[in-house]
């Protein structure tokens, strides 16, 4: 096992890296409480360290049924653009609108 058992609060740098990865902009006022909370849960989850798992292979979900999971590789109708755009918060007739990502 690694050293990843922080029963102590997540430090501000760690939390900043995490909120960036998760794309969640957190108000400064909430950071301390959240860091403490996550530390508490992670400390509790670290109880799993006491379970012996030597030689056990990880499980996503058991009993995969690959033969029934396959379907013919055939082209089928897909969503029309107009309908795909219906729930977009900002759009024009051609696509989704986003802030400029390349400079002029």
């Amino acid at each position: 096992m690694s050293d990843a058992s922080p029963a102590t609060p997540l430090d501000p740098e760690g939390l900043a890296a995490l909120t960036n990865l998760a794309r969640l902009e957190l108000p400064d006022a909430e950071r301390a409480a959240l860091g403490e909370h996550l530390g508490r849960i992670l400390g509790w989850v670290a109880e799993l360290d006491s379970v012996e798992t030597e030689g056990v292979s990880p499980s996503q979900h058991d009993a995969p049924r690959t033969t029934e999971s396959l379907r013919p590789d055939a082209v089928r109708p897909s969503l029309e653009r107009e309908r795909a755009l219906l729930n977009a918060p900002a759009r024009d007739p051609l696509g989704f609108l986003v802030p400029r990502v390349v400079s002029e």
Partner: protein
Amino acid sequence: MSYAWESAASLAAQVRSGETTARALTEACLARIEAVDGELGCFLRTDAEGALSAADAIDARRAAGEELGALAGVPVGVKDNLCTEGLETTAGSRMLRGHRPLFDASAVARLKAADAVVIGKLNLDEFGMGSSTEHGPDGPTRNPWDRTRVPGGSSGGSAAAVAGGLVPLSLGSDTGGSIRQPAALCGCVGVKPSYGLVSRSGLIAFASSLDVVGPLTRSVADAALALDVLVGADPADMTTHALPGASPAPFSAALEGASLKGKVLGLVREYRELTEDAGVWSAVEAALDAARAAGAEVREVSLDLTSAAIPTYQVVSTAEASSNLGRYDGIHYGHRAQEAGDIVQLMSRSRAEAFGPEVQRRILLGTFVLSSGFYDAYYLKAQKVRRQIAAAFAQALEGVDALIGPTSPLPAFKLGEREQDPLAMYAVDVFTVSTNLAGLPAISLPAGSVSPEGTALPVGVQLTGRRDSDPALLALAAGLEAALALPTTRPAGLGGQA
């Protein structure tokens, strides 16, 4: 005419025979929701226009001599994390306010194809993340038996609507107990089918390897009727498969002549000390006495790793949630922040503005356990423990027909009581999460009540079976339901004290 407390089977039979019409049932259902749901807060929205037009189409087909489906005219409520074409579907989140799906979830489509009438959408914890149905932006749902208490969650609206006589059948989803725990707390039947038997297509994803869609009803027979419709392989969900060796209505068929005689129930030893409320355990023991009297044998069995299930679940479910909820970016659909500079800020701000605190906590936890440097210690470790939990179930189920124990360690708790302590809230799922980790079928059915403050609160007993043995599990549940022969009681103040 009130149909509030009639079974789905009886209502469908009346519509098929012409004794009543789908329109009459729909109108009565909508009127009852209008009259009593202000007290309960089950429905986030009803769809009177869509429901009446569907009902009229069903009645017209009957008039034309067509044979109607198994759920002819039966009003159903749908948890609001299941997509309904053109009908707003929010998953109880600000993120999806105003979202109108382009298609029906497969489970909803199957109900409609069996001539059920979708009445509206039911309250839940945001994205299914909770055990009390008090986290959502639309306010709490209240327990029909005591309106100061929670209905459980996350399918709290689905359970309270059935227990309160608003609909005879609702759809819920169960990622760690979200059908069974509210069913227990509201005094109805809730089934979590084996993973892969009911399509997840159109279920707004929380944790894809754990999420299962299932029915909530007031009787095991109605649950079987619904499962006959819901279960089956779906090309739109590659994790589904057909029930092995299934006849056309395997669940209803399994219930015919169902009896506990000669059946063996395994009482999970570890559950006793994890049951917070002594009255809950007494109710389970009374259920065991009834089962013995009906000819069943009860054995104590041991289920290893019971206490490891919740931490394992927290790691696996939040990891999957952090990935699944990555789709909410403020661009393709859902909430978009108005004040944002670049595209990263647009995403981060949209998500921060629209996700509630519990959802944010889980996304962050899931991001952490998947992040470089921590993946092996948390996520990989949890996946290994998950495999061992499945093995522990296989061992416990050896030589018994089903495992039995309480569904929830305590009856319905007060609104707000556990809201500030997420760890205490997670502990509520101690008897339910492990079945999702193992992919097994489980059912919660009413097993009496406790009266902590003079008000009777329902207690649920859970039966857990082998994977894909769902019809046999329902038959056991029907046997236990008959053996218990609970008196018909109904929540006070909601009409129809029969």
